[in-house]
């Protein structure tokens, strides 16, 4: 039915099957849209946040998906500035995933503020000392960059290519990509860092507060490093999932190798720097503020195990897994390493947001716990559904993977545990 809209040289699932795949996600989106509507119309009393737990599920997961979406600017830098051509295999996915992550996060933020119609006030009365003002500016600008980077993908659609003015526009846009990649890298560096600084600057929250360089706490740099380390791992996870669903080899092994190796070294570096930062925080920063670090880890369920899990199990271990070539070429090991890395950055964002707010600062106060309401869960589920739908539509109608058909024609190559599958129409989901 939509054959004339599909990429000419690539096979796609029949439209009814594709519609069936989209159906649950559309229902999830509708459910979340209803929940978000309740929050907007009736107010944030629909959530289980309160005067102590002023941020909840949304902020924690916003921080996590923005970190996971860092693959967009990392791959942009690698392709356009460092000329790593093999990364072109995933640049399309990176842009779509990045756009979905950032637009989804901004959508959740709009529901998360008490007066969303005043969002523009930050541009009109900006406080240059506020990390949140910096985040607002950088996120908005970078979303615009991602939207522009998305345009060439859309222009590669077969219908668009038949219009010569659009072809010329695409050609001109291609020259702009280097500039966009550089601007994107600059903006991403600052907003990833500012998200880390968001809690790192809070001297009233000794659990989160960190010393730093100039106006930036160390969490600023740790967030940048962890996002850059995890972004490529998330791209591996996404593209391998897409491969499993479509039954096609979408990304060349060399690209996976490169991304895995990059992620591995950065994760190991992150584990080292994070350990150093933690030692300084334990021995100098926290005692100077009148607190004993033991207080932060003596109130169940928050114990020292979280710190160990974050640094060792979810940073060092995935780094070591992805470092070995044989393990990168084994699908179970590759996916385990990438998944652990993504879980690590998610746990880090959880600790910095939820654990920080749960811990009391006043001696007469107590530890508080929080369970999100169904409206919060549904709203976030809608963001995930939106991402899946956007990526599915992009995969179906746009040439996201330059080597897709080449892989389909290539003979299967045996690698330990993970050989590329021949194209099977029956396996196509999107």
């Amino acid at each position: 039915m939509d054959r004339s809209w599909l990429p000419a040289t690539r096979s796609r699932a029949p439209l009814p099957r594709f519609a069936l795949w989209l159906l649950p996600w559309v229902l999830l989106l509708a459910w979340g849209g209803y929940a978000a509507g309740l929050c907007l119309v009736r107010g944030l009393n629909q959530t289980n946040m309160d005067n102590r737990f002023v941020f909840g599920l949304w902020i924690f997961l916003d921080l996590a998906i923005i970190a996971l979406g860092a693959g967009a600017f990392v791959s942009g830098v690698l392709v356009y500035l460092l000329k790593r051509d093999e990364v072109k295999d995933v640049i399309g996915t990176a842009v779509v995933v990045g756009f979905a992550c950032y637009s989804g996060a901004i959508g959740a933020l709009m529901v998360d503020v008490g007066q969303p119609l005043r969002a523009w006030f930050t541009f009109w009365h900006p406080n240059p000392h506020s990390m949140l003002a910096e985040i607002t500016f950088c996120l908005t600008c970078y979303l615009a960059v991602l939207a522009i980077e998305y345009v060439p993908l859309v222009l590669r659609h077969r219908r668009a290519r038949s219009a010569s003015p659009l072809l010329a526009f695409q050609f001109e846009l291609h020259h702009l990509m280097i500039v966009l990649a550089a601007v994107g890298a600059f903006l991403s560096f600052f907003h990833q860092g500012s998200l880390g600084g968001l809690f790192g600057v809070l001297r009233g929250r000794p659990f989160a507060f960190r010393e730093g360089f100039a106006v930036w706490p160390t969490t600023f740099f740790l967030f940048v490093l962890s996002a850059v380390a995890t972004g490529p791992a998330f791209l591996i996870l996404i593209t391998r999932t897409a491969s499993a669903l479509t039954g096609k080899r979408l990304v060349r092994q060399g690209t996976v190798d490169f991304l895995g190796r990059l992620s591995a070294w950065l994760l190991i570096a992150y584990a080292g720097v994070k350990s150093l930062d933690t030692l300084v925080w334990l021995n100098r920063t926290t005692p100077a503020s009148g607190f004993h670090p033991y207080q932060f880890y003596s109130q169940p369920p928050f114990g020292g195990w979280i710190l160990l899990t974050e640094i060792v199990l979810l940073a060092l271990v995935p780094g070591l897994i992805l470092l070995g070539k044989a393990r990168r070429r084994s699908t179970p090991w590759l996916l385990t390493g990438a998944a652990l890395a993504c879980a690590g950055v998610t746990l880090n964002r959880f600790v910095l947001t939820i654990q920080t707010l749960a811990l009391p600062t006043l001696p007469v106060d107590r530890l508080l716990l929080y369970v999100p309401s169904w409206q919060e869960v549904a709203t976030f589920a809608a963001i995930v559904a939106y991402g899946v739908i956007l990526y599915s539509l992009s995969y179906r109608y746009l040439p996201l993977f330059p080597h897709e058909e080449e892989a389909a024609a290539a003979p299967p190559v045996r690698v330990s545990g993970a050989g590329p599958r021949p194209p099977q129409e029956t396996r196509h989901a999107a």
Partner: protein
Amino acid sequence: MSTAAASNSRYGMAIDLDRCTGCGACMVACAVENNVPVPPPEAGERKGITLLRVYRAENGRPFPEAETAHLPIGCQHCGEEPPCVTVCPQNAVEVDPETGIVGQIPARCLGCRYCMAACPYHARYFNWWDPAWPAGMEQALNPDIAPRMRGVVEKCNFCHGRLQAAKAKAAAEGRSELKPDEYVPACVEACPARAIRFGDLADSSSEVARLAREPRAFRLLARLGTEPSVVYLSDRDWVRRLGDAAGPALGESHG
């Protein structure tokens, strides 16, 4: 005591914890003065608005050594880079240089609640619901104070309406300075034990400045370096240690 509002005053409080009985009159007076709406039943303890909140602390000793202290805690009007001021993305929190009072501008507040996360004293509150009062109670509202809308943050501002009224009265009488005790917040006035004293900390001859210099005076979380304008007083060592003994609660709170 001179409280000159036009010459770099720093208004502050001295709260004598050995006098405070925890009766809660200050909380009620604060709510009435500032038109704090009545929360719906589902608000619970964690979503209501108590610009001044009385916490209870216990020394953890068995009878007969068991002791209790009540700590009225509101905005501490930090004197050294208040954490909530620097974080607000759109300058909706500001320090009045003439009075040292940390103020909130509800009409500019986005409701992002970053200032609430930044405040170590948990002294800022979000309007989770539209302001509403039981039938008849709206007739008792303070006409000088605008209720805050749903979705914005609010906090103690040392009864800003009273400061404006005192300034207007002084101006009408041709004075540029306020008389001592001409301006006091509602909680100070309501305390039956006279546990809360208010005045200009910058005026070394004021009662509140004198109390702040006493050996039994302490500030909450002083080592964070926020330089609060609210000083607590107690002769009891374990109570004074509360100022710096963060961590597992020594008592429990109510509000």
